[in-house]
């Protein structure tokens, strides 16, 4: 089955070319892959942004039990750490987590045994910064006032996340560039085939006074029409795939995967995929035709 251009009349019978049979469907496939790559990149960016927002500005202080060490009791050291934190510029709030809250956090790993009072549990302090904090200075003061206290500013996590999101975005850009290159090569091949098949008609049009641009417009209309239709089909397939993945991700019990739903503006970006492919096809067709016709009398 071949995708037919919408415009019925063309001076060149391009619609019956063998190249027309595959150009539309190849464009559909490329639009499908491009839309998925773009959607994947946007979803990963969103996920990284959400994690970034959740972790940025948040600090965690852990005061570990030190049985047998010549240090103050655990609760006294936790209070000392709280005092240091509340007196530090840039710290908005510092809250000591209760034993129950800590047990809930550890439950996925330790099960119901996490709430066993005999288990030596650290004291955790959730800290929210509302301004720039001197992390190195704070870390020194904490270890001095509360031995066994460690400060986690999530910098390593955030750096890893940002690096991961950047790599995904880079990969998506690479995929889009490859798809663009494939689209260009496909259009060049289809147009050159069309020019070779219809050379006598092109020569006739020239003899009747057609300019190269007039001939080029015939090809441009043809490939844009096929690209828009193929791109639309590819986008529909990608949309269906995204919806299916979204539904499947909702069924997962653990929230290991982020929500795979796109924002409205992101759908608008995906709608631009067929338009971008059509624009690329138009520019490629024009360049190919004009360059080839230059060698004709």
């Amino acid at each position, binding site marked *: 089955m071949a995708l037919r251009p919408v415009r019925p*009349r063309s001076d060149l019978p391009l619609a019956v070319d063998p190249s027309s049979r595959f150009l539309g469907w190849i464009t559909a496939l490329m639009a499908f892959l491009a839309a998925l790559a773009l959607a994947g990149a946007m979803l990963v960016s969103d996920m990284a942004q959400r994690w970034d927002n959740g972790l940025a500005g948040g600090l965690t202080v852990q005061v570990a039990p030190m049985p047998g060490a010549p240090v103050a009791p655990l609760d006294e050291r936790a209070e000392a750490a709280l005092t240091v934190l509340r007196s530090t510029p840039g710290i908005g709030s510092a809250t000591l987590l209760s034993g129950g809250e800590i047990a809930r956090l550890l439950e996925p790993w330790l099960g119901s045994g996490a709430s066993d009072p005999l288990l030596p549990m650290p004291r955790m302090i959730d800290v929210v910064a509302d301004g720039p904090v001197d992390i190195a200075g704070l870390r020194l003061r904490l270890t001095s006032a509360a031995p066994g206290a460690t400060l986690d500013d999530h910098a390593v996590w955030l750096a890893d996340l940002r690096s991961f999101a950047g790599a995904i975005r880079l990969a998506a850009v690479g995929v889009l560039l490859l798809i663009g290159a494939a689209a260009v090569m496909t259009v060049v091949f289809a147009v050159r085939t069309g020019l070779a098949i219809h050379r006598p*008609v092109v020569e006739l049009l020239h003899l*009747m006074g057609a*300019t190269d641009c007039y001939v080029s417009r015939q090809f441009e209309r043809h490939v844009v029409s096929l690209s828009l239709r193929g791109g639309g089909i590819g986008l529909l397939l990608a949309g269906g795939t995204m919806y299916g993945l979204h539904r499947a991700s909702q069924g997962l019990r653990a929230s290991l995967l982020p929500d795979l739903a796109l924002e409205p503006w992101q759908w608008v970006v995906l709608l631009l995929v067929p338009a971008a492919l059509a624009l690329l096809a138009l520019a490629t067709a024009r360049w190919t035709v004009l360059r080839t016709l230059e060698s004709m009398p």
Partner: protein
Amino acid sequence: MIRFENVGLRYGTEAEVLRDISFTLQPGSFHFLTGASGAGKSSLLKLMYLAHRPSRGLVTLFGRDMAMVTRRDLPELRRQIGVVFQDFALLDHLSALDNVALPLRMAGTPEADVVAHCSEILRWVGLGNHLHAKPSTLSGGQKQRVAIARSVINRPRLLLADEPTGNVDDGIGMRLLYLFEELYKLGTTVVIATHNEALIRRFDHPRLHLDNGRLMVVPSRGSRANEGRAQDARANDARWE
């Protein structure tokens, strides 16, 4: 309108198919281009409708030296030339109307005008009932008339026809030549390549006769008679002097 001076044409490294062609066509003239098959009629026409450039010599068209014309200038010049090709050269996937409309659409004529003008000219050549017929459904004579309508739709200054009567019977051939005669009377410069002597004899127009690549200009019978009468008068005057 057209001036050839010592023009030669060869294809590749072959011998010249046209040799030392020199002639001038005045605006509004009518010429038959005659000669045996292979004499070079089609090649000469191709030089006139700018499908080829000469291998040597000077070709001037509409006052412009073709050696100085760039590829970019060709469409503008070609739009002033109407051509009826020997094999009609109609586009099979287009209707008769769309075939005739090609020169107008190339010139950017508004679509409403295109349809109106093409319908009118197709009615003029007797194909009013075949506006939307595809060439494959038309007879040889009807195709020929579509080709003629296409060649004159944008009112060309020069009309060239290559064996326009070659694929039709004598009756239709005569009607086609009368059609060209009408266009000539409207001011179009006409050159018709043909080897149909019977048809040519019914019209009194000068001939460009090609013989083995060389051209000879044969004046019309009327001008020959006038020329003869002038010679008699000059001889008579001399006798009395």
